[in-house]
Structure formats: C-alpha cells, structure tokens
C-alpha cells in the first residue's frame, strides 16, 4: 500500500478494556498506510496495548467514564507517529522508575514492565500536558 506522508486520522473511544481491539485495529490501518513491515505491526500492537491499558487503569480513577483519542500520522514513508490522548488526571507514565532487570525471580515484582517495554520499542516517545489533556506521542519506523 502506498505511503501517504502527512495523512492524519483520529478515533475517539471509551477508555475501557473493551475498546482495546478497536484501538489496535485503527492504528494498524496507519501501519499499513505507512508500509511498516509485519514485525513492526506486532510491536505496534504491543505499544498500543501497554499505553491504552495504562490510560484505562490510571486516567480516570474517580470512576467517571472517560475517553481516549488516538491520532496517527505518517511523517514520512516508513514512519508512523501515534498520539494517545486522554482527559484524565495529569500523569506522565515516562516518569515511572525503570525496572531492575537484574533481580532474580524471588525478588522480581510481578508487574511494572509495560512502560519499560514502550520506551524500549518506540523509536521516539514524548509526553506533554496540554490544558486538561495527557498527550503521549510515540513513533515507530520500518527500520527501528
């Protein structure tokens, strides 16, 4: 499929686990438009799941039903940029302390690997608080 530099698409959905598959499918369309190889699409699924589930878990702790807006663009052929935005409590997941990968099984915490995976797999990642929005933007490229 031909790459379309500059193309931007957005989708807003409920910040709920039930929306995860729809989120993945939406961003996969961008991956196809950007001509990302299959191996990158698996990584893209992982990035979206980790970030999306993070929003579902942390953005709206007061129980109100929030939304997530996904926006993707293709800065250049073979490159995809994805923004995940929510209107929840201010939260920069990139501030999370990195896990200690040297610990043995007894000492390892059960969780805490999601954001580390995101930071490792994305070719770039930034967070900004924009009025009442959390905006996490990552890039993934054919060669990354």
């Amino acid at each position, binding site marked *: 499929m031909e790459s379309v530099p500059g193309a931007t698409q957005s989708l807003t959905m409920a910040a709920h686990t039930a929306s995860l598959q729809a989120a993945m499918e939406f961003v996969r369309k961008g991956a196809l438009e950007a001509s990302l190889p299959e191996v990158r699409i698996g*990584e893209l699924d992982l990035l979206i799941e980790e970030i999306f589930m993070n929003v579902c878990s942390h953005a709206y702790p007061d129980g109100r039903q929030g939304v997530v807006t996904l926006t993707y663009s293709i800065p250049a052929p073979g490159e995809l940029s994805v923004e995940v935005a929510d209107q929840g409590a201010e939260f920069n997941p990139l501030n999370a302390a990195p896990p200690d990968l040297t610990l043995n099984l007894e000492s390892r915490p059960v969780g805490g690997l999601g954001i*580390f995976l995101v930071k490792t797999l994305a070719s770039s990642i930034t967070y900004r608080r924009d009025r009442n929005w959390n905006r996490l933007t990552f890039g993934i490229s054919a060669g990354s």
Partner: protein
Amino acid sequence: MDAESAPQFEQHCRDCVAEGLTGLVVDLGELTYVSSMGLRSFVSVAKTLQDKGGALRLCRLNGLVKQVFEITGLLRIFPVYESVEAALIGG
C-alpha cells in the same frame, strides 16, 4: 497473550497447581504476541511454583515473544528450552 487472555492462562496454571502439580512446561511455539499483562502472569505463576519447590519451564520462544522476554530480562529468570522434550527432561 494480552490483557484479555492472560488471566485465562494464569487461571489454567493455577488450576494445575491446585491439582498438586509443581512443575509446568509451557510450549510457546505458536504464541506470536505477549504484552506486559502476559509477562505478569508468567512471573506470578513462576513465583508460586518456586515457592512449592517447582518451576515454570518455557520452550520454543520465537519472534516478538522471545524479543519481549529478552528486553525485560526474563530469559535469565526462566528455564528456557528449545523443545518440549528438552523442557520435560530438563532441570
């Protein structure tokens, strides 16, 4: 193995533990995807088995799944084998 399927996997493993098994071999040869929720289940089950004197053995990791285990340092924690047969007789 994602946020939706990982709890099912973990429950299945816990059912095995409840039946008295202390050693489990998980064949990952057909698994193409694992997120941190899946990793959480693997670590949780492995801790339970280790507490009982057993172990969770993994085999046939490949592709993205192997990459994710490598990135997170979990390949050093789990006994990993090239085949089911090797996992069954190993360690």
